């Protein structure tokens, strides 16, 4: 086996084993034929030193993602993963939309821009710059993206999510000084969300029901704004209400709600919810730990203990609730594997 073939076979480890079993040899043969030239010397050189091009690698990675998320059908496990990723993307957009609405609402109130509602006199705001205003308004892009996704326009939602992400980058560069570890993770999650929205191109389950999901936006915004207003008066409560704290509270609440509903037999065992909540619990846990680390490095000794303690407490709670969700998900996926019909996809004539 030439080094080039070996390198290509390494790339082919990304698609699932069942797919490789059926197609790997054929793909390797086609790839090697595609790089052959009319010059035997050049072919020898390529066989030793050649590498699959980026476009070729990207095509295999895209294929692997499509197969693992069941976007072209495939195994029931892959389809279940796809449904969970779509739900994660929907919840991610909902979270962005809620925070966008709350941010614009509170900023408008503090700057006295809500008719009939005076700005509080206990808040002293710095000068409002053009970029700061754009950053606040940029949050509303998530609202439009969320509504677009609910209406079935996932490409529009994805384009708007890219715009929202760009606004986050602008915010990072123009307003918050040197980025913290957690801010990088926020951006990474944003980029993952943009990619995850691509899973809507192969939706198998019925689309999300619009009305309850639309209702979740004002309800979530009202709850978040109320918590933030309450928290602004109490330091102990405020420690729970930084963005990572809000995400933790939301995931913990949703996960607890799901587990109780499951115990009461109110939810479908094959639902994508435990899977999606397990993924979100893992992501928010990482975020919570990084923000705790940031607080240790960046805030004063008077506030750091409470912020770090609350951060770690939420991290423990996320871990505690993430474990049963992961166990439920693993069991469901194992069940799907045992129910999967055996046999290769290729049929010889």
């Amino acid at each position, binding site marked *: 086996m030439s080094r080039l073939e070996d390198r290509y076979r390494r790339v082919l480890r990304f698609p699932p084993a069942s797919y490789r079993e059926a*197609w790997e040899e054929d*793909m390797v*043969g*086609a790839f090697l034929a*595609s790089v052959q030239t009319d010059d035997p010397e050049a072919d020898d050189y390529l066989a030793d030193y050649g590498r699959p091009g980026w476009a070729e690698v990207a*095509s295999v990675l895209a294929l692997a993602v499509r197969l693992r998320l069941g976007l072209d059908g495939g195994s029931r496990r892959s389809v279940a993963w796809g449904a969970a990723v779509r739900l994660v993307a929907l919840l991610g957009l909902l979270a962005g939309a809620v925070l966008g609405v709350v941010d614009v609402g509170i900023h408008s109130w503090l700057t006295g821009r809500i008719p009939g509602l005076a700005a509080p006199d206990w808040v002293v705001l710095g000068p409002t710059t053009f970029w700061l205003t754009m950053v606040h308004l940029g949050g509303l892009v998530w609202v439009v993206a969320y509504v677009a996704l609910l209406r079935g326009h996932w490409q529009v939602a994805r384009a708007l999510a890219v715009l929202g992400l760009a606004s986050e980058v602008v915010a990072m560069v123009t307003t918050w000084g040197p980025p913290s570890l957690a801010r990088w993770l926020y951006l990474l999650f944003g980029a993952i969300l943009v990619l995850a929205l691509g899973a809507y191109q192969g939706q198998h389950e019925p689309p999300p029901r619009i009305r309850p999901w639309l209702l979740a936006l004002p309800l979530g915004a009202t709850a978040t704004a109320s918590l933030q207003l309450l928290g602004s008066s109490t330091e102990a409560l405020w420690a729970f209400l930084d963005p990572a704290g809000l995400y933790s509270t939301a995931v913990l609440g949703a996960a607890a709600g799901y587990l109780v509903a499951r115990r009461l037999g109110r939810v479908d065992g094959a639902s994508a919810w435990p899977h999606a909540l397990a993924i979100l619990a893992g992501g928010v846990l990482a975020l919570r730990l990084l923000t705790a680390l940031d607080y240790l490095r960046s805030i004063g000794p008077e506030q750091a203990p409470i912020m770090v303690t609350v951060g770690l407490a939420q991290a423990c709670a996320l871990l505690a609730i993430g474990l049963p969700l992961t166990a439920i998900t693993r069991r469901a996926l194992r069940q799907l594997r045992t129910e999967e019909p055996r046999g290769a*996809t290729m049929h010889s004539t």
Partner: protein
Amino acid sequence: MTQPTFYVLTALAGGPRHGYGIVGEVSDLSQDRVRLKIGTLYGVLNRLVDDGLVELDREEVQQGRLRRYYRLTEAGSQSLAEVAARQAADAKVAVDRLRAWRPANEFGASR
């Protein structure tokens, strides 16, 4: 039906072909506008085989490597014919409109 899928089916409508043969044929048919990467081609083939539009024709050993040839099934040929008819109808609508179309400044000049 995506453009790569359309061209893969069209390539196989000309007769059974192996993977790299399909890549070359698609490139020729599309006048180099569609250059399939191997990962893309086998994603399309996997779906077409699963859907029963393409099937294995034969296997040959070439330079010590197994080479599989694929062919269009009856369902594949029917599906391609339907899409081609739809595209031809769409194209006809556009061509008819274009025949009747005059540039805006031409209207202006005639007034």
